[in-house]
């Protein structure tokens, strides 16, 4: 491939994979099972990114492993309802056309694992959206670094990636032990936790011990729901650059690191939410930083601006599951929203919800269910919203910078109530803010 026998683009793609291998001192290249390709929204790509994709497409580049796109800057079918300008829509369409002609599936989602793209445990993949990377590594035990847009595309075209970072077992070892000493009741609590931990851990690998015991879930297992894990991973990757986390008794690789569990010596009763920064020697000899999270108030405070009037409520970052759409529909039945309500999800999940009549119920209340896009990558700053509410810690973290929007952050129930009232509806159960 490097010699150019398979054409110019394959050679360039192979050069990217090989260069990353050199830079990060990989010992080998590995075959990838799939690629998830970010850098799809025209808002982020700009003219240069579009030109690049069109050039590769025009030279006949084709992916050789299943490859699927991250969200675009708009719902590819209902962009007018979002208020997207037609010139933006035209350029966005060129981006997805270029990707599509290279064989990239237009799933346009950060949750490919909800729509049939579930890598096997131990499988090497090249995914790029940060919450998708986190879910693939942490919950599915697949192996991926956080690829950039061009490097994920290069991996898709060559079918290979350089085996550095999280492709290597030793790099999946926990760097921080996080003792969580407060209750986690809902997805917002998991998001606030992710925000607090990500801020301290940066690009480390946190090993979380949840306390007190989680409530009994389905099949009698004590574990967070899928939505809660998605919220946690997305927040860890937003305030920090966490691409892999472990939760004791929950995530599949947690029990591979017994040294982390056996190491004791916590100060009981600490409730500051700050790191002790006590570097201690784990059984393995690796250095481990201990963090205690005593409460979530600091996280909620950082993610909440003191807003009363709310004109925009955005759910679905990461993309909503079918269950979340069903919850939202139930809360909206018999009501009418005053604020604009967007729920963003993948095309496939929207279609399932549509078949069940769930989309119709949300729309009957004045809400909108958009596919292919999300708050973080759509040109929301051009749509004239003043104040946002969201149940996503990741969205609340990015909205001021990426969308010029201040936000309120709480549970799905609080956000739906806020959409109905047009005012921020609520203090956190059992907490301040």
């Amino acid at each position, binding site marked *: 491939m490097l010699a150019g026998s398979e054409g110019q683009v394959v050679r360039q793609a192979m050069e990217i994979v090989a*260069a990353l291998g050199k830079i990060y001192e990989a010992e080998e290249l590995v075959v990838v099972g799939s690629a998830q390709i970010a850098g799809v929204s025209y808002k982020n790509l*700009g003219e240069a990114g579009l*030109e690049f994709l069109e050039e590769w497409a025009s030279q006949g580049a084709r992916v050789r492993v299943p490859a699927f796109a991250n969200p675009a800057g708009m719902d590819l079918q209902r962009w007018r309802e979002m208020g997207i300008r037609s010139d933006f829509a035209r350029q966005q369409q060129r981006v997805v056309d270029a990707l599509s002609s290279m064989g990239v599936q237009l799933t346009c989602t950060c949750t490919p694992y909800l729509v049939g793209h579930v890598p096997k445990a131990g499988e090497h993949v090249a995914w790029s959206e940060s919450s998708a990377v986190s879910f693939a590594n942490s919950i599915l035990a697949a192996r991926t670094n956080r690829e950039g847009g061009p490097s994920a595309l290069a991996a898709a075209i060559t079918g290979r990636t350089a085996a550095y970072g999280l492709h290597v077992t030793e790099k999946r070892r926990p760097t921080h032990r996080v003792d969580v000493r407060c209750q986690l009741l809902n997805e917002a609590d998991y998001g606030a936790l992710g925000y607090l931990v990500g801020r301290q851990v940066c690009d480390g690998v946190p090993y979380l011990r949840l306390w007190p015991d989680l409530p009994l879930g389905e099949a009698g297992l004590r574990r967070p729901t899928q939505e809660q894990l998605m919220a946690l991973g997305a927040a860890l990757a937003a305030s920090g650059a966490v691409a892999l986390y472990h939760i004791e008794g929950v995530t599949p690789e947690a029990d591979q690191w017994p040294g982390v569990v056996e190491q004791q010596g916590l100060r009981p009763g600490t409730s500051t939410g700050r790191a002790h920064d006590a570097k201690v020697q784990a059984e393995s000899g690796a250095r481990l930083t201990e963090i205690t999270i005593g409460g979530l108030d600091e996280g909620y405070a950082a993610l909440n601006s003191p807003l009363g009037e709310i004109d925009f409520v955005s759910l679905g970052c990461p993309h909503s599951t079918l269950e979340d759409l069903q919850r939202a529909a139930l809360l909206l039945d018999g009501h009418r929203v005053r604020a604009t309500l967007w729920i963003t999800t993948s095309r496939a999940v929207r279609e399932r919800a549509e078949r069940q009549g769930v989309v119709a119920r949300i729309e009957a209340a004045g809400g909108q269910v958009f596919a292919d896009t999300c708050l973080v990558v759509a040109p929301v700053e051009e749509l004239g919203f003043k104040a946002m509410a969201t149940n996503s810690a990741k969205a609340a973290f990015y909205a001021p910078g990426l969308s010029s929007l201040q936000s309120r952050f709480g549970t799905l129930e609080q956000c739906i109530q806020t959409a109905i009232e047009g005012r921020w509806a609520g203090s956190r159960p059992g907490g301040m803010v």
Partner: protein
Amino acid sequence: MKRLRGRVICRGKARGTALVSPAAIGFLGGVDPDTGVVIERKHPLSGQCVAGRILVFPTGKGSTVGSYTLYRLHKNRLAPAAIVNARSEAIVAVGAIISGIPMVDLVDLTQIHTGDRVSVDGEDVVIG
């Protein structure tokens, strides 16, 4: 004539006048893709044009979209003739590869000064 040896990030040949930065370069917001001029305020190269130069700097920094800024410089015929780094990182490396800009790293940058005539050929960097 001095002959240095580095590591190929993007193989190619180029010859030009060196423009040396003691500080890292972030292309997104750091270099104007429509003029080739360094626009990052307080950057040691601020106001200088990178077009056609052998651009020498320790490493890259900043947003990953910077890869596309390099590509846009290339499309505008304003790209550096070659890039020489002390230690390359992913953003500039990817940008150089998709733009076909010869790039070498692991080079002793103290040997190169702004204004030197430099040629890059694969891993060889020849000054003078």
